């Protein structure tokens, strides 16, 4: 399946060498401790994303996926494909099925989930007002149709929990944010933090976005910077993160959070994902 254990030594080597390269050992935080690779998609096979790992969300969801987003998600190669070792999710400005924009969203729901672990992806982000890419997770027990009362396996959002490893707005090219949503702390009341690159941008280079997650804590990091830790004490409601979550990658256009694209928003805009990896 997707377990690729023979890669561990190489990964470890890269990690070790990157530590050696770093100068600021004095201010070094323990960014990662989980180093055993248990799942990865390196996006090395051209074509559609690996169907044994990824599903598509198609269409507009309900109320633009709950956020008044403006795009229609498709599984067309013009919106999502693997090419030259990268996953490409491309937002386009085109009339399609009654919407003015198209893009794509893939998820591992029903095919892969994990309870705890280090989940990271190496991503180069697009830019422009209204462009809203995300690398995130939802509790596997989410039930979007009918919530069965008192059945913990079928709960609605936000009780299922949501971990946003990376969200980014294309008109703030030096910032991204990592967030958790749960019962009593969702939407505008979610708990998270914004990280600002001091001397670079997210749309000009690849950056590694990740969480290290275990019982009762989630550490958020970008590259070699640990920038936030969230524990049950930090959330004003039930801690719903001691259960399996699945992974989502998407590029939204418009909606409540980013606002609509403007005349300076360039199209098409592509999020490039070099890899996604899970360690235990």
């Amino acid at each position, binding site marked *: 399946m997707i377990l690729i254990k023979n890669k561990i030594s190489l990964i470890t080597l890269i990690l070790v060498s990157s530590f050696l390269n770093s100068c600021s050992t004095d201010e070094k935080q323990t960014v990662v401790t989980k180093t055993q690779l248990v799942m990865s998609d390196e996006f090395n096979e051209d074509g559609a994303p690996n169907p044994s790992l990824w599903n598509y969300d198609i269409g507009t969801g309900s109320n633009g996926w709950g956020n008044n987003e403006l795009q229609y998600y498709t599984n067309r190669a013009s919106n999502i494909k693997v090419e030259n070792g990268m996953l490409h999710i491309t937002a386009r400005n085109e009339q399609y099925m009654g919407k003015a924009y198209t893009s794509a969203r893939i998820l591992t729901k029903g095919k892969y989930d994990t309870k705890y672990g280090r989940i990271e992806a190496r991503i180069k982000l697009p830019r422009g007002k209204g462009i809203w890419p995300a690398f995130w997770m939802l509790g596997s027990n989410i039930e979007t149709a009918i919530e069965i009362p008192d059945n913990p396996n079928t709960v609605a959002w936000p009780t299922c929990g949501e971990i946003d490893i990376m969200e980014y707005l*294309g*008109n*703030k090219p*030096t910032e991204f944010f990592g967030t958790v949503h749960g019962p009593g702390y969702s939407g505008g009341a979610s708990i998270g933090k914004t990280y600002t690159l001091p001397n670079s941008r997210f749309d000009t280079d690849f950056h590694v976005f990740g969480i290290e997650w275990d019982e009762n804590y989630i550490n958020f990091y970008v590259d070699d910077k640990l920038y936030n830790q969230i524990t049950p004490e930090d959330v004003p409601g039930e801690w719903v993160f001691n259960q399996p979550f699945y992974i989502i990658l998407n590029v939204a256009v418009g909606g409540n959070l980013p606002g609509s694209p403007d005349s300076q928003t360039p199209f098409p805009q592509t999020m490039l994902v070099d890899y996604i990896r899970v360690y235990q």
Partner: protein
Amino acid sequence: MKNRKINYLRNSFLLTIVILVNLNCEREISDDASDATFPKTAEIFTDTPVGMGTNFYFPYGPDANNPVGSKFSAWSVDTDVSYKGNASMRFDVPNATDPQGNYAGGILRVDGAGRDLTGYDALTFWAKASQGVTIGEIGFGEDFYPDKYITTMTNISLGTAWTKYIIPIPDASKLVQEKGMFRYSAGTQGTNGAGYTFWIDELKFEKLGTILPLQASIMNGANVTRTTFVGVETPITGVITTFNMPNGVNQSVTISPGYLNFTSSNPSVATVNDAGVVTPIAAGTAIITATFNNQPATGSLTINCSGSFTHAPRPTLNPANVISIFSDAYSNVPVSYYNGYWAPWQTTQSNNFAVLGDNVLNYTNFNFVGIEFSNPTVNATSMTHLHLDVYIPGPIAPGRRLELRLTDFGPNGVFGVDDSQSLPYVVSNNLVSQSWMSFEIPLNQQTGLNSRSQLAQIILLGGDNSTLYVDNIYFHN
């Protein structure tokens, strides 16, 4: 000179090795190597000018458009106001009526060898003003010679609170020895002529790493065509680069052509140099395009070269018998303008050119045009004729005529109710194409012109929006 250059190259090669060795930790370059290039000083003004030498402020002087120039005393160091530390640069923009200068403008130029700015990507500063104003131009790279790498941000909106401003460096690799640290030009067009003050502090170059270069353009992004002649130099203008700034907003700056690389599609017809000056050398068509950071720039200049220019007949009259408005053969009287761009009906544009020292008025899209010489007016009482050489490069439509009117500003010598103007006088209704036509217009046949002691305007009419060359405009007897 050549030897020195080689030494620099060798030193920079050594420097590169030093940098490579130190790359792992980006430690500072050793002192031994730091002399190899020009100073990399970032700061221009903190609480005092930094590394600028003693003679560094040069206000803009008089020019053709502004006989007074900028106000010399506009720039000063203000020890009562600062964003950080204890002083800032203060700019007192004068009232439009100030006889010492009706605007503020000038450059800060290193009094010395110049700086190596290749490690930076922006000029940054903090600024505020005594009222909300829009400053016309702020930038860098102007050194009065050769002005090769000027970068200017236009229409900068200043409020009354300190705010940080960022001017992107288009291509820092070019700035190995830059003297022009800062330039500005501020007037009172937006304040109804009322003066104001603005302050700039912590003026310095920075390596931000958060600016994304986007598109460059020449000719303001348009595909422009010019019909011209061998030897007529045409500069590439309208050079703009756009950047996506750290706040996500696109910012454009106007830059010198020297930042770009130019190509002629047909170098046997027209060449283009590093400074973006195009020189036609033979009849034919050549398209000039540019690249910036190895990316094609939008816009182009197409040169349609008609071959060698035929000069107008050289005047032979004794200068004592001539009052010249436009001629290379005589000293011209002061002329306010050769094209008044009289709104809203005038379509005529000016693309004047010079061929081997022969200046020619080139009116394109010509319907009518006003030439004014009102300061002072011209007393042509003793003159009998107005001479005019005209060349029409395009075909002549049937029935087309060229007409002329003269305006006298009357006893008071200024534009107003006592003026008199001649009725349209038919200069010619027998025009020919592609040949110089010389006209002698009798001044005593100008109906409606009450006087010619305060002559101030010549108006040419009868255009069909084609092109007209004019040379040797003079009164004589």
